[in-house]
């Protein structure tokens, strides 16, 4: 397990995410059909497939993250497009030109991404959105001793956060239209975000 990640690991991450979304899109769509409009899996599969197809050879991890975010913004659509797009763009901006990203850099990146998504979508923890996976993941990562344990902890926290959305009433996104009927269903965006961090942990080592 490396103590820093470069564009090779990032490309691996995005590839793993794309594969995961392509394979699991039916499951995510089912989650979204229950409390949304049934397209979340297809949206992300389309977006990350495009990211991988257009990835090229960017100069730095930051450039790769930014351009991936732009591709997501222009291919995903829906609520998750601007949100996932902003996550990547804002992480990319924070990464600057650094060729390699260590634990501290990743802490900054993840915090910037979280802040960006929260600014864009105005959701708070507990609103039954992807924030419920991302927010605890960022906290768990920051608290971990090193990059490897941090990414593993982040993935676990995100999965736990996604699971914790089941009993929630939604206050943002389509699921909020359902009121109490949203109870008992896991949020698709929180789930897909947990998958993203799981892919990152795998790519890191």
């Amino acid at each position, binding site marked *: 397990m490396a103590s820093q990640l470069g564009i090779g690991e990032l490309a691996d991450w995005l590839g793993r995410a794309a594969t995961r979304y392509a394979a699991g899109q039916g499951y995510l769509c089912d989650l979204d059909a229950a409390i949304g409009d049934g397209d979340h899996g*297809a949206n992300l599969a389309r977006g990350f497939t495009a990211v991988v197809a257009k990835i090229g050879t960017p100069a730095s991890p930051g450039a790769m993250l930014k351009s991936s975010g732009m591709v997501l913004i222009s291919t*995903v659509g829906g609520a998750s497009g*601007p949100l996932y797009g902003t996550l990547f763009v804002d992480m990319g901006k924070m990464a600057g030109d650094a060729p390699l990203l260590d634990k501290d850099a990743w802490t900054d990146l993840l915090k910037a991404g979280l802040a960006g998504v929260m600014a864009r979508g105005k959701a708070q923890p507990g609103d039954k959105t992807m924030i419920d996976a991302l927010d605890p993941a960022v906290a768990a990562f920051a608290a971990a001793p090193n990059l490897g344990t941090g990414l593993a902890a982040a993935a676990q926290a995100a999965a736990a956060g996604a699971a914790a959305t089941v009993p929630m009433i939604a206050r943002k996104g389509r699921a909020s239209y359902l*009121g109490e009927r949203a109870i008992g269903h896991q949020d698709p965006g929180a789930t897909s975000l947990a998958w993203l961090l799981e892919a990152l942990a795998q790519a890191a080592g």
Partner: protein
Amino acid sequence: MKKLINAPDKVVDEALAGMAAAHGNLIKVHTDPNFITRADAPVPGKVAIVSGGGSGHEPMHGGFVGRGMLDAACPGAMFTSPTPDQMLAATKAVNGGAGVLHIVKNYTGDVMNFEMAADLAKEERIAVNAVVTDDDVAVQDSLYTAGRRGVGGTVLAEKICGGAAEAGADLDAVTSLCREVNASVRSMGVALSACTVPHVGKPGFTLADDEIEFGIGIHGEPGRKRLKHASADTLAEMLMEPVLSDLPFTRGDHALLFVNGMGGTPLIELYVLFRKAHEIASKHGVTISRSLVGSYITSLEMAGASISLLRLNETMVKYWDAPVVTPALRWGA
């Protein structure tokens, strides 16, 4: 799933190609990114109106592009809001120098994507205003929801604002007229069956033979509550009650009554519903001076209907009656 399609991921592009082939005299279909403009865009000196949203709601919005209504429409993937690059390209293509109004239905995705596009357009020095429509009384507008959804009222806003823009109103006037229409219209819908998003391959929900979903949106999602099916007259009462009381409509109001089909409901049933809705409005002292009946804002093949009621003023009537020449709405020219 049985549909007249070739493959789920080709539906939107192929339907756009079909629209281009069918309506080349009225509209122009652009690809990569996807958007539709009126054939003669940009119209110099005219405020341009751009709308858009997920596909699966046809004829909205592409069918409303043309003289007297929209200058451009941006179709997203099925039930998925379009992306900012589409709205940016459309905005640039139709900008006639008098500014561009974005009419956005209030869904998290649509709002965020249009916002990003407007930011980018402003960077290119195009004056962009946005109005977010939210006429659906099924959702409570509160801190605990994403706010009311934009539904049938959006069609009326697009027609009326299109008339005003065509008549030469400036960007601020068209924008405030759009806000006024949105503030004067209320809608409510009911589903008798679900619809199947092509790439999902199965219906969004399943209803027993005697069940309906009440208070639906337009994305095939379940509504506010599942109820026992009832007669058309009873459903008309249930739909009209919240619509009338929310604005509220009052004795002496003149209104436009729009009975909309969700895609799979035959026109004859919409007229049965219209009859009762009209009667209820009349009993309430509301005069229906304009009408629209048909499937204009749909959820694929969903069976069901929505009712929108718009309190009219003279300006709205004038621009509702104004000529419109689009694939789906056409009169006066």
